């Protein structure tokens, strides 16, 4: 991979993984707190990075605080490994750590992601780090942080339920596309980051530790393995994922993956958003999505 050539200049003048050790320790402490209280947003003193706020600085700080020389890193944006933003973040981590990178989900020890959970099931020995723009799921119904913190403390989620109900009354459908709010262990409503609804069921009872970092908003939260995570829904209006019925990936022919709609000269085509998995399927159409 071309990133390798940057390694010669690696780490000059910077600590391993850019952040100083004290900062990493603080982030790890806050992460432990987040793991101990699934779905609760832990404030942390987010550092300024040489990457712009809003471009993955929360996820990046989590990855930097966790990564060691033996790790193998995968960074994706929209499910892709090779798009410019993923490359930029990966380059910074590689420059300051020299770790190995991979596009293969199964081989990574840490996966940092924006907007997707990989198609391939992840294991106990892996960590998935999410980049989060809005850590507060209640922000759509309440702009004030003081108030939303109170609402969480008192499990006062009525406004959220009313919002969803009114959506159905007005539009006959819940209008939230991505960032679909979930209930964690029956306690906290949580923003799963802007993953599609298609990925939401993967949060429930997963084998992998999920960590969420919001750099600009200065919050860390977590879903530990084997935690109950349920999308908000009504008995008579169930949560629904994106509908790709009758569509398949133009490249690997899969009919069971999240697809991106592309506009070409002669109409719409669909392709897997998880490019690394798509490649695996092209080599072996029987590649399973779920762990056996």
């Amino acid at each position, binding site marked *: 991979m071309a990133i390798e050539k940057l390694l010669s200049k690696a780490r000059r003048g910077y600590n391993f993984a850019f952040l100083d050790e004290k900062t990493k320790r603080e982030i790890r402490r806050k992460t432990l707190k987040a793991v101990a209280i699934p779905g609760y947003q832990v404030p*942390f003193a987010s550092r300024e990075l040489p990457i712009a706020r809003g471009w993955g600085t929360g996820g990046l700080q989590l990855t930097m605080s966790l990564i060691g020389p033996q790790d193998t890193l995968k960074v994706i944006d929209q499910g892709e490994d*090779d798009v410019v933003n993923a*490359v930029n973040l990966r380059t910074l981590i590689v420059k300051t750590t020299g770790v190995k990178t991979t596009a293969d989900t199964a081989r990574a020890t840490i996966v940092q992601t924006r907007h997707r959970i990989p198609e391939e099931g992840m294991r106990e020995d892996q960590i998935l780090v999410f980049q989060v723009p809005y850590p507060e799921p209640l922000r759509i119904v309440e702009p004030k942080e003081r108030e939303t913190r109170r609402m969480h403390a008192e499990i006062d989620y009525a406004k959220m339920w009313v919002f969803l109900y009114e959506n159905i009354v007005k539009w006959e459908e819940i209008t939230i596309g991505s960032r679909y709010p979930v209930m964690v262990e029956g306690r906290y409503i949580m923003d799963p980051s802007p993953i599609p609804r298609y990925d939401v069921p993967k949060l429930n009872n997963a084998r992998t530790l999920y960590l969420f970092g919001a750099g600009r908003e200065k919050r860390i939260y977590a879903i530990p393995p084997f935690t109950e995570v349920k999308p908000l829904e009504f008995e008579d209006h169930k949560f629904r994922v994106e509908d790709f019925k009758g569509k398949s990936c133009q490249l690997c022919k899969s009919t069971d993956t999240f697809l991106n*709609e592309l506009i070409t000269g002669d109409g719409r085509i669909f392709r897997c958003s998880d490019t690394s998995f798509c490649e695996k399927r092209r080599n072996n159409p029987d590649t399973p999505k779920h762990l056996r």
Partner: protein
Amino acid sequence: MGYVAVRGGLEAIENAERLVKYFRVKGDSRPIEVKQICEQFRLAVDQVMAEGSLYAPLYAATALKQAEGDTIEASFILRALGASLPRNHYAVVADTREMEIIRRISAAFKDIPGGQILGPTRDYTQRLLDFSLMDEEASEIQKFKDEFLTGLSDDDPPDFPKIVEILRQEGLLEEPPPKPVEPPVDITREALKFPAPRSARLQVLARGERGGMLAIAYSSMRGYGNIHPALGELRVGYLPLRIRHPWGEGTVYVGRVQVTEAEVISVHFTGEKEQAPKFTLGYGLCFGHNEIKAISMAVLDRTLRSVQPQAPAEDEEFVLYHIDGIESSGFASHWKLPHYVTFQSDLDRIREARKRKAGKDD
């Protein structure tokens, strides 16, 4: 399929970097020297140091050169640099009465002890474009400097008592705030919580983006609020800084920084029913010579102390969460990143909702 086509992202990034450099140097003028920016773009350098929250004129000038004059971008570069530096000491609380003044005015009183010192200001000059600057000669500048510097006294500037102290002695102002806690809250080490302690609030304001602060402060001055400021005193000068002696007794002088300080008196009466009414004070202080920012900060410091916040400028979260230029510009520009997965989800929702509506209409 713009984004999709961007594969092998590394090469694309490298090419973009080279293009940026090309656009900066493509003209045939000589490369601008950092020292020139530092000396001749004084106010831009000051703005970048304040918003970048790092007092380093030469680095700020370099960042301005790198950012082709974009102050938010330059502040971001400086802020990121500062975040990677260790914090060895906190200065002891400085007393601005010790400032070596280059400018000092009060709009509240005509005559003030120590006098009104206009200093370097454009306030009373007409904003006519000076065409002679298009071909300024070094010899001409030298001649001006020789003339200007002849016969200037090199006496130390006199002491200037604070105007607000006079009002305070008369009992017209609220009591001075309690002695600051040391070390103060450090907003780069602790996430902001609400209600924010005043030291945290002043730190956020001191490194806020000038345009953003001006807009919100202006909304209050103009009518969305009830502050009615009078400028008690505005000072520009050099402030000596000290730290605790690392192993011995007392403090050690470590250098001085240029700052602008504004004290705004709110002539809106406050006080309980039984008590005599008082004026209240708003305080602004920022790195460098930046009067608009110091005044905006002082107004916002005052609006944020409103007992019953009503206008946006009086809402602590609204102001403090939205004035940081590095955060707001970062988020505003992140919309340039691909969002096609989330957009796919949105498309799915609207198609579904339209289908349901259509089904009903049939």
